[in-house]
C-alpha cells in the first residue's frame, strides 16, 4: 500500500476513533447519575456559586459602597508576595495555598465583619472562590467574591495600599 493510501486509511480510522469516543462519552454521560450538561453554563454567576447553587458574586459598586460604609472586610486570596506588591487598602491577606496555616491569624479580623469579600486577580482566578467556599464552611454566613477584584478595584481608582506605599 502506498504512503498516500496509508495516510488516507489512517485519517479514516482516526475519524472513526473520534466518532467512537464521542458516542462512548455521550452514552456514559447519559447513564451517569450526576451527568454533565453537554453545553454548560460557564458564566461567573454560575461558576462562582455556593453549595446550594446561589451566586457568591458581588459587583464593584456594591463592594465599594460596603467599603465606604465599613461593613465589609476584604480578604486577599493571592500569594503573599503578590499581596505585598499591592492590595485593597485594609484587606487581610489569606493566601489560598496556605489557608489552613494562616486562618487563625486572620480569624479575629473576619469575626467582626458583617460581610466578607474575597478577591484575587484575573477574570478566571479561582482562588477567591475557593477561599469564599472555605470561609462559608467555617461558618461565615455572608461571604462574597469580587471577580477580578484587584484589577477592577485598581482601575476604578479606589484606595489601595502596598507594603511600602500607602494610598496609591
Amino acid at each position, binding site marked *: 500500500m502506498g*504512503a498516500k493510501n*496509508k*495516510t488516507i*486509511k*489512517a*485519517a*479514516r*480510522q*482516526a*475519524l*472513526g*476513533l*473520534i466518532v*467512537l*469516543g*464521542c458516542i*462512548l*462519552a*455521550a452514552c*456514559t*454521560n447519559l447513564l*451517569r447519575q*450526576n451527568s*454533565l*450538561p*453537554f*453545553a*454548560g*453554563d*460557564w*458564566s461567573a454567576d454560575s*461558576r462562582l456559586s455556593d453549595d446550594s447553587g446561589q451566586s457568591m458574586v458581588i459587583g464593584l459598586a456594591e463592594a465599594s459602597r460596603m467599603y465606604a460604609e465599613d461593613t465589609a472586610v476584604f480578604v486577599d486570596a493571592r500569594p503573599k508576595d503578590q499581596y505585598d506588591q499591592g492590595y485593597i487598602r485594609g484587606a487581610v491577606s489569606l493566601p489560598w495555598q496556605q489557608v489552613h496555616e494562616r486562618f487563625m491569624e486572620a480569624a479575629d479580623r473576619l469575626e467582626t465583619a458583617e460581610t466578607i469579600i474575597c478577591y484575587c486577580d*484575573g477574570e*478566571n482566578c*479561582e482562588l477567591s472562590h475557593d477561599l469564599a467556599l472555605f470561609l462559608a464552611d467555617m461558618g461565615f454566613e455572608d461571604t462574597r467574591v469580587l471577580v477580578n477584584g484587584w484589577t477592577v478595584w485598581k482601575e476604578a481608582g479606589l484606595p489601595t495600599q502596598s507594603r511600602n506605599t500607602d494610598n496609591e
Partner: protein
Amino acid sequence: MNKLRFQKIEKTGFIFARILMGAVFLYASYDKILNPQAFAEAVYNYQILPDFAVNAVALALPWIELAAGLCLITGIWLPGGVFVCALLMCVFTAALVFNQIRGLDVHCGCFTTEAAHGPAGIWTVIRDLFFLVLSAYLLVRIVFLPLEKTGDIPGRAA
C-alpha cells in the same frame, strides 16, 4: 551485520515507544473519565474554547484518548490510533505553550483533575514536547514511511 543490529534496536525502540504512548494515553484518560466536572473546569481554565464547547470537549476527549491508547497497545487500527495520538499531542502542546506565553496560571489537567498538583510550568511543556516527538516518530514510522509490517505485538498487524 551492523544494519541488522540497527534494525533490531530500532524495532525494539519502536515497540517500546508504541507501548509507552499507549500507556500514557490510557493513564491520562482514567481520571478524566471518572471526574468529568473537574476536567471540564481544567478545560475551561485554559480559556481557549468558547464556553458552550467546554463540557462537550471535556466529556469526549478522555474517551478519544482511551480509544487511541488501546489502539496503540493492541495494534488494532494502529494507523488511526497513532494519527489521533499525534494530533492530540499537537493540540495539548500548543494549548500549554499558548498559555505559558500569555502568562495564564493554569493547571495542566493532563493526568489528573486535581488542582493540588500545581499549575503547569516549563517542565510540563518539556514533558509534552517529549511525547509529541515520540508520537511524531510513531506517525512517521507507521503511516508515512513504514519500513516493514509494524504488527510487532504477536497476533496483530498494522
